[in-house]
């Protein structure tokens, strides 16, 4: 028996719809669009920071889903497969685009230096309830900070902390080891924390 035969089939809320589409009911494909259009549009906005690029990402992703849905083997949740398609589409698009080259985020930049004067009190913003803190202006600052993350860190931060995927799911979507996901996520969070500190202290 091959390894593929041993893989467990995963059924979720999309299974019936996908089986129907793959059995010839392509007229139901727009239902898939309606289920995931908003999630993918926001994923696109977070990854690209631009409405037009986000719209292109949604369109290209659904084109690829339409082309390759027949190859979906139910070995993962459909949503995870969809994000793998979207992520791959996003990376290909950005390689061809005008965006700045990648750079690494070094942990050393965020470790409090031994000689550094370090505040001994938790800042107010870190103690406030989220519903009092998160207004439109802060949400916009946060979105801007996320878009300014180098892509490989942004992908991990968006999938883990904004889209709500687990470490294992993010590793699967990005074809990374979970340990790499954790390293990138920690650096991305430190980067974002630094941006927020700058915002609140300015």
């Amino acid at each position, binding site marked *: 028996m091959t390894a593929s035969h041993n893989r467990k089939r995963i059924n979720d809320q999309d299974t019936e719809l996908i089986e129907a589409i793959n059995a010839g009911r*392509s*007229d139901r*494909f*727009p239902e898939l*669009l309606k289920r995931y*259009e*908003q*999630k993918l*549009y*926001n994923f696109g*906005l977070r990854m690209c920071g631009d*409405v037009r690029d986000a*719209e*292109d990402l*949604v*369109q*290209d992703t*659904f*084109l690829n889903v*339409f*082309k390759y849905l027949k190859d979906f083997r139910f070995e993962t949740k459909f949503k995870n497969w969809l994000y793998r398609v979207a992520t791959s589409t996003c990376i290909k698009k950005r390689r061809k685009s005008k965006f700045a080259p990648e750079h690494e985020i070094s*942990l050393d930049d965020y*470790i*409090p230096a*031994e*000689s550094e*004067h*370090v*505040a*001994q*009190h*938790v*800042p107010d*913003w*870190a*103690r406030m309830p*989220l519903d009092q*803190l*998160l207004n439109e202006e*802060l*949400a916009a600052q*946060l*979105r801007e900070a*996320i878009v300014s993350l180098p892509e490989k860190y942004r992908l991990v*931060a968006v999938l883990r*902390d*904004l889209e*709500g995927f687990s*470490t294992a799911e993010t590793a699967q979507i990005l074809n990374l080891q979970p340990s790499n996901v*954790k390293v990138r*996520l*920690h650096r991305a*969070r*430190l980067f*974002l*924390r630094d941006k*927020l*500190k700058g915002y609140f202290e300015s």
Partner: protein
Amino acid sequence: MSDQDKDHDHGHCLEMFKKLSEYIDGELDQLNCEELENHLSDCPTCKICMITLKQTVNLCKEVKDNPVPESFSDKMTTFVEGLQKVKDGPLPAKPVKKL
């Protein structure tokens, strides 16, 4: 530097610093978790770092989705309905028409 900082084992601090996200996510094993919590109780610098990092994560999780513009949603519906019509023929490698 405070007196507390002078006596501080910064090598240990750096080791703990690397584990803060795993701690926030509840992904540390019990041994590492206890070690980190002991460190946090002795080290205000790392504790403040953990609290601000946790708040950053919580804020990210609270960012709401934007609604899809109605005009784009309508165009996407038209786009995928158009895909069905060409399903028996060769699909283009790129979208036939950009929205």
